[in-house]
């Protein structure tokens, strides 16, 4: 087969604009989903370490459910199924008045999916701090809340930074699934260009390079953060 190369395609109008718009949507979906995932994930992760049995059960149930169903299907559930199961007025609002339904569905689906993964990292981080530390905090008269706030969480946060980096990268990569419910993020746009111009290789190369750059930038940023919060005398990064 003969392939006609044209590397000007991804950097000429209107396709460059398409790619940039795709990049913007990728960042918007990933950014908002990350905020949601972080808040919910930290909450669920903490629940899983509390002395209260019901709280731990609830946290475990959340994690099991959201980790056992493919993300693609979760997006379909939020997009096609959940509005049908809501009370009529809410469903009506979602279908008629919610602006950018593809966007918000992607954010919620991706955010709650990622929250389960973050929760696992948070739990592991808290457990790595060790029972001795919570005992010492309790022994000095700190309440459970105080011991989490001043002792357990600050240390756990440093443990979980590296795994959270990879979760952050996962959110960027997984935001590509938004194309399945019609949001033209970066991958979707590159496929759009392929369909329009038959220059798929050039379009995909451009998108792939952008993903690589995003990844490298995210890693560099998190490394810098790790250095800032590093504790003298322990956990030095090799």
């Amino acid at each position, binding site marked *: 087969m003969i392939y006609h190369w044209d590397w000007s395609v991804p950097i000429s109008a209107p396709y460059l604009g398409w790619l940039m718009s795709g990049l913007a949507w990728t960042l918007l979906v990933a950014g908002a989903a990350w905020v949601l995932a972080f808040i919910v994930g930290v909450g669920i992760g903490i629940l899983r370490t509390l002395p209260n049995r019901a709280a731990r059960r609830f946290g475990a149930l959340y994690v099991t459910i959201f980790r056992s169903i493919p993300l693609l299907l979760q997006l379909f559930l939020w997009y096609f199924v959940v509005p049908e199961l809501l009370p009529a007025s809410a469903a009506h609002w979602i279908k008629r008045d919610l602006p950018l339904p593809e966007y918000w569905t992607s954010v919620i689906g991706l955010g709650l999916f990622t929250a389960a993964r973050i929760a696992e990292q948070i739990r592991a981080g808290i457990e790595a701090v060790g029972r*001795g530390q919570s005992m*010492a905090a309790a022994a*000095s*008269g700190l309440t459970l809340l105080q011991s989490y706030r001043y002792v357990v969480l600050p*240390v756990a946060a440093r443990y979980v930074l590296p795994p959270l980096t990879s979760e952050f990268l996962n959110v960027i990569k997984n935001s590509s699934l938004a194309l399945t419910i019609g949001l033209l993020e970066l991958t979707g746009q590159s496929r759009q260009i392929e369909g329009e111009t038959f220059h798929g290789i050039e379009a995909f190369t451009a998108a792939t390079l952008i993903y690589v750059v995003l990844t490298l930038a995210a890693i560099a940023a998190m490394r810098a953060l790790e250095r800032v919060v590093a504790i*003298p005398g*322990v956990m030095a990064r090799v």
Partner: protein
Amino acid sequence: MTIPLRLDSRNFVRDELDLVLRPVVIAIDHVSKKFGDLDVLKQCSMTVLKGEVVVVCGPSGSGKSTLLKCVNGLEGFQAGTITVAGTSVGERRTDLTKLRSQIGMVFQHFELYPHLTVLQNITLAPIQVLGRTKSAAFDKAMSLLRRVGLADKADCHPGQLSGGQQQRAAIARALAMDPIAMLFDEPTSALDPETISEVLDVMTGLARDGMTMMVVTHEMGFARHVANRVVFMDGGCILEEAAAEAFFAQPSTERARSFLSKILRQQ
């Protein structure tokens, strides 16, 4: 209850009188604890009087650390009562947080908070729990650090200190709460041999100053020279409770005798 005596010839009479008049700080009464089918503690009873140093010893797995942790409610128990300065530990209504703020505890692995400096480690609970001002907590912490010989390490993080230094800092942290009693859970077991004595010296100083102490340890030298009484545990039971001199001169049970001969041969 038999009245324990310190057979120190110089102060014999004064100590004896003193001890009779001393109030009970920690009273452990028929405490039992099960972990599943396993009896961790069986009908344990002992007391610690004000200003007294009681060493709890015994082979590993004898339940001594568990008993110590029951005193400030870090471990629960199913039967019996523990009273600390008149407050019952096991009762639901007891404000454990408040009780714990009055009892200092020192752990085998120090458990200093790694992300805080030594000074912040010491001032955290006084500020957050007792509501002391920063400057009051700071002054107190510095004077305690001078007392344990670590004034120059105030701004170090725990990871930058040796084991012995960390444990001395941990003792200062416990003292910062002005505790009515101190609990020590094998405070020298995780230390390099050459740093053990610096920690024992601090503990000996505390005892001389009249601190009420319950100490789980294998350091028989400390038990012999500093403790008023020794409690020997094995298999979750308290087998022996005697004045330190008497315990070392003539242990009354066979198990205590064999424990002592083994441990003294090692040391």
